[in-house]
């Protein structure tokens, strides 16, 4: 079996940042905040976060915060909850959450909760269970979960549960592994996993593994490295990960590496990108691949970062 080309991936991730003028990176400029999270978390899992200039990243993140408290995907872009989570996660990686105005950020997220418990992504009102996860994850990291109506938020997520045990974007929406991760993650963080039919959902999730060993995101779809994260983390949170073959999945992810130039792609021999490189590395971490830092399945941050937030003397001081 192939091995993880860890050093090449590190070099690839660091190089992407320098190719700012390629067409691809111009098209992706609006989600640079997500990109920063993917790249930096992957580097941390690979044990190479120290190669990054922390001050440069942190001051750029601060420059993306708006008066409302939310973060844009890049300077000049409007604030949206999608990028707000990435900003919080990156700051958590560097243990720098204290550099931003947490109160303002909290009220931004709180303002996005709707009457039915759901969350909008921004002031324009699109509702999606992805945003429920993001709001809950952010506030939990900031130790401000008590500021929203958690009970209603959980109720809304449960109203998106389907006959197959999975979850959709809104009530009636089809189950999708990415959406399931968000809903299971939100329920995990709010201590509500008992509301999931774990055996039913577990069967649906474990059947995402196809012959090649890869995981797909919905029935009868092609496998894709990014689902190594969405499906795996969900299976782990509901304690059903032994229902798939870990060996086969490891092989699939390793087969998607560009062993010459670094990076991981969605499927073998496709073009690599930071998104799939992160999800490949994070997936391998969840599979306990040797030499990688373990990652937390719900907060999507390295376990040591999460533990630092929740199990240290300073953390208890923050609890209201």
């Amino acid at each position: 079996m192939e091995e993880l080309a860890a050093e090449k991936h590190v070099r690839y991730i660091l190089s992407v940042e320098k190719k700012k003028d390629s067409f691809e990176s111009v098209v992706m400029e609006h989600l640079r905040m997500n990109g920063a999270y993917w790249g930096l978390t992957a580097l941390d899992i690979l044990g190479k976060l120290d190669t990054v200039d922390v001050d440069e990243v942190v001051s750029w993140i601060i420059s993306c915060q708006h008066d409302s408290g939310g973060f844009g995907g890049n300077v000049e872009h409007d604030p949206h909850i999608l990028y707000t989570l990435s900003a919080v996660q990156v700051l958590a990686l560097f243990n720098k959450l204290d550099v931003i105005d947490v109160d303002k950020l909290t009220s931004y997220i709180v303002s996005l909760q709707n009457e039915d418990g759901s969350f909008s992504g921004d002031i324009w009102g699109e509702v999606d269970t992805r945003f429920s996860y993001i709001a809950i994850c952010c506030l939990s990291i900031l130790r401000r979960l008590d500021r929203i109506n958690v009970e209603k938020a959980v109720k809304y997520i449960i109203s998106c549960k389907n006959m197959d045990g999975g979850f959709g974007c809104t009530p009636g929406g089809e189950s999708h592994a990415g959406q399931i991760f968000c809903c299971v993650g939100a329920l995990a963080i709010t201590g509500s996993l008992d509301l999931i039919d774990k055996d039913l959902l577990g069967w649906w999730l474990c059947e995402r593994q196809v012959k090649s060993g890869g995981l797909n995101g919905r029935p009868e779809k092609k496998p894709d490295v990014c689902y190594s994260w969405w499906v795996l983390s969900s299976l782990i949170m509901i304690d059903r990960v032994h229902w798939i073959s870990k060996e086969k999945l490891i092989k699939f992810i390793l087969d998607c590496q560009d062993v010459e130039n670094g990076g991981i792609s969605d499927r073998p021999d496709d073009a690599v990108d930071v998104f799939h490189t992160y999800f490949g590395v994070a997936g391998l971490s969840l599979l306990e691949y040797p030499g990688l830092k373990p990652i937390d399945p719900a907060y999507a941050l390295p376990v040591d970062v999460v533990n630092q937030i929740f199990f240290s003397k300073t953390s208890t001081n923050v609890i209201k």
Partner: protein
Amino acid sequence: MHGQPRKPLKQEDESLLSAKAAKLRTLQSQFFANHRDRIYTQEALDLSAKLLETNPECYTAWNYRKLAVQHNLSRSDPDYVAFLFHQELKLVENALRKNYKSYGAWYHRKWVLSKGHSSIDDELRLLNGFQKADSRNFHAWNYRRFVTSLMKRSDEDELIYTEEVIGENFSNYSAWHNRSVLLSNLFKSKAEEFPLEEKVLQEYEHVRSAIFTDPDDQSGWFYHLWLIDLTVKNYAPLLVSSWPSHGSNITLNGNNCIYGCGLSLLNSTLSDTRTLPVILYFNQAVEGINLSTVAVKSELLKEDLVWKPLSTNNSSTAQVWGAYLNLGNMELEQSKTYSIKITIGHSMGIVSSNGYQYGDPYQIAFKLCVQTASTKPVEEQGGKLTSWKDNNFQKIDHFEDSDSIVSADLHIPTTSDWCMKAIEEEITTFRDLLSEEKCKIGKLSLARLLTALDLITHQHDKRKNHTEEVLKLYTDLMELDPTHSLYYKDEHSLVLLKQITSSRESLLPYCCYYKDATEANTSYVCLRLQNLSLSRMGSFENLLWVQMLDLSHNDLRSIEGLEAMQLLSSLNLSHNKFGSFTVLGPLRSLKSLKVLDISYNKIGSHSIDTRRYLCSSPLANTEVFAWDRFEILCGSFSATKFWEAFLIFESLNLTDLNATGNAVADENFTSFIVKVLPTLKWLNSEELA
């Protein structure tokens, strides 16, 4: 990026692309200037349109368009307003042709339509185009549900639409999903026109044709399982079992130690605290167990019972509820029999998470009496090391009356004929399928159908069950589909446990008297389920009476559900596959637990903890980490290293713990655990000084 080949770019492609990139960058900076300065002229709008047609994912540009619409709406000319909205819809359409997976574009369309200035008549036609191009696009399906509800199209019409889509190609999971949503709505809103039984029978036939056409195609698999569930599931909450069970007699001796009735002297918490657990086990999670829904009548009752959900979660619902009857202040008369009556569901308020009311009032009556003091003084707890060696156990020929081994007295209401008929018919057709083709979904469905049949015929005839056949099917599946073999193994374990615990007779071969070497006269019943290749525990509703349980030498990874066994005082989990301390979360609610053997497991050898969020903890916001207490107890030990062990053991009163043979159990752990568990007398089979 998805589905793009990795091949290296040719030189001319690269120069072409960098020209495109430069152009896009200019476009973007012009756009941001307009956005900043709030310029909403037609020229500026055209520029943002150009940007979105090139890159529909540029969400800030969609926001800008909305601001522009709001700004320009102030001009009240109706023709202009119509033009304005038409322009937005056209732009969305163009953007979707570029990328029909763009969240921003789809939402912009919803936003425009919800303003109510545009006709929605054309939306379905547009949508049909997108759905033809990609029949699984979930954005399009979401949008379809949005539009059909906006135009008040009936669920019946949409049901016909899914039929057409499935008719064209049955391999369309999205359409099957939408069918389940529509039918669920119709069952609720139009129950008379849509009788469940008639529709479910039709649907079996419908989905069968999909599964039988290509058994490897998953499109119909989950729908079929859903139908089985609709056929046999009791939606209303029911009481499945209880401890004490109805009609049982419990004897206390003069020292207020409870024994007989399967209650051993080992169980000293019950005598120490002079409390008696009462456990209610339901068929599903319920809420609303309290004084007004559960009435307890007894002269022993001096204070109101406090019912608590036995669950590690934040929610107020649980499948198992417990309360402790306090006998502390009572002078119990010798040889007198006290009766206790518990009435459940006499008033409304017990509700399932789906909102169904408990509808089957039930009474549990049991007796409590006090006998003369035991001839022998009760030895202090933890005086002796518990040994799990075979020679400490003695086979039982038959149970004594006083052993009172209880198996759940299921009182499932009689199921209707159509349920039985439907399941039997499905069984026949799946047997036919399997006679032609050895497919995994055939075997799995057959196993599920047989299990369902046994469940609904349970009360009629226990002997005619299909357990052996189901076990064989799961064994076959492990071989047929090795990728998911542990799923089948877990199912196999659950079926096996159901069989073992189904009656007193079936339990007998697994029950032994525990005799420790020095105390030949007293004997306690131990349930020994060791060496059965169990990968999962279950059937807890039949095991509420158990105080001593041996689960060693199995393949267990979790003990989810064990929190129901409130009488448990000795538990052997050694030689299994437990991977972390959080796995032991259910033990935290076992007030009587004294003896625990977790030796030879995998605790400490995994970097990823699969029970991290199922265990109550600060991570799940179900618990505040008691830093102060941790610090007092553990001083220099690192919280991140030992928080799991601290959370689990802090609330227990173990006297005997064996943790050897785990990666975590080093010297640091030993000195840590002794501080966390001051009650400990034996650690790793050695007496503590």
